[in-house]
């Protein structure tokens, strides 16, 4: 039984995008991930991230609990309409000119080893907007914490998933945040809150639609 552990006001958060999102469709796009990243960037992390422990950031979102000690943030997965499926290429050319000058080796194999040439093609999807439903404990703090989030998805350092504007608007759908994976013993292992990739965050979940 999922319950909301702390009160919050329903809001709709919208990101306007000007670049395709890389690797968007392998996992749900969860807003507490970028929010936790922003909090860490701003020095709000209560401790270091280790393989055994992931610190929880103080996010301005209500929390849900499942009664068995598993909890997460009350925010839906991103809702969006893909307008085109595409791919992006990222190249990594070995610095062979510099190697020729500064390294003593006779050869460099372009297709083997950690320093090989790479031409990586990643799936990407175009969407004009990403929309999340959430329960927030402080709408202004939420809007402020979104400001450093300038990109969503992979390859953001190379410009993909660029967000030009964020809007946070009050809404009247208090259960809409539940459109996300939530704990269910019959489900498959998934992350329940940021950082979603961390082993300590994995629990059996199924997708709920309120």
């Amino acid at each position, binding site marked *: 039984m999922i319950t909301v552990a702390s009160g919050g006001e329903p809001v709709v958060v919208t990101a306007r995008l*000007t*670049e*395709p999102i890389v690797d968007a469709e392998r996992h749900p796009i969860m807003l507490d991930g970028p929010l936790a990243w*922003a909090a*860490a*960037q*701003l020095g709000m992390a209560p401790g*270091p*991230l*280790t*393989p055994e422990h992931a610190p929880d950031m103080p996010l301005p979102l209500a929390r849900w609990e499942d009664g068995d000690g598993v909890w997460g943030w009350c925010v839906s997965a991103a809702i969006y309409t893909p*307008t*085109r499926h*595409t791919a992006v*290429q*990222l*190249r*990594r*050319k*070995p*610095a062979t000119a*510099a*190697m020729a*000058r*500064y*390294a*003593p*080796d006779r050869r*460099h194999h372009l297709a083997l080893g*950690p*320093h090989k040439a790479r031409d990586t093609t990643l799936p990407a999807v*175009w969407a*004009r907007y990403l929309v999340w439903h959430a329960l927030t404990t402080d709408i202004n703090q939420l809007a402020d914490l979104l400001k*450093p989030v*300038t*990109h969503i998805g992979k*390859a*953001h*350092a*190379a*410009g*993909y998933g*660029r967000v*030009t504007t964020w809007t946070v608007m009050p809404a009247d759908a208090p259960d809409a945040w539940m459109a996300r994976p939530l704990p269910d013993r019959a489900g498959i292992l998934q992350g329940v809150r940021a950082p979603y990739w961390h082993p300590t965050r994995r629990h059996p979940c199924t997708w709920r639609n309120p």
Partner: protein
Amino acid sequence: MTTIDLTLTLTSPLHHGSGSAGNTSLLRTQDIVLPDGRQAAVPFVSGNSLRHQLRDALAWHTVATLAVEPGSLSKAAVDLLWSGGAITSTGSQVDLAMARRVEETYPALGLLGYAAQSDMTAGTLRVSNLHLVCAENAWRLPDRLAGHNHVSRPAGMFRGEEFGTRHDVASTPVDRLVQTAGEIVQPGTTQMIYDLQVLKPGSVLWGEISLTPAATEQHGRLLYAAMELLAGDCTIALAAKTAVGYGRATVDGVPYLEGALDEWTQHLTDNADDVLQLIKDLTK
């Protein structure tokens, strides 16, 4: 957060390649969806390419300042400086002390991100794709470019084609000279005309370079130094075939911070041994 807003005007044809068809090198394009749902493929220069140019500029400056002897670096060290390194071992311990040492000794790695041993550290630098100022991109251009003359024109207006020639020495004085030397050598070269799809000179590109909130003050100053190395005279050579004159552009918006490059050079000079030892330790 630091954001540098750049506008580039091409002064020579630009070729950013994406494979070939026959003898023609194709121009790289991005599939985009317009606000009305129509789709288009618009030429662009990848942010990844510009980001690498910043790393490349800092790497060459580093080895020149430290007077690194030819043949004295490992391949892994060269790869770390020019390409950001690679994961070379497994492990579940993050070396926090090494990360701090990197920030103190050679913060260029912290700015651009790097991988070493079993750790991958994200940089604080973000470089956007450079987009063509044209009708298809009008919806995502900054307000200051909304009234630009090119915004009303489709991307196709800015595309063109160039060619180059690779000469064959067969039947030339060079060939005859080889024969008179008594060598039975058939020149292995082939006469070839190659074509390149290009963006025409005069085309305008827009993009931005920014730092995340976790960037240190040193990262900010280093970014200014890198920009001065790359485009200090407000010109830049972008994308492919720059050795034969392609990709030249003038750049508006290059920031200048008095003394930033001198400070970085002095830091490298003062910490030369520590920097070289750090690179060695990261790549052993």
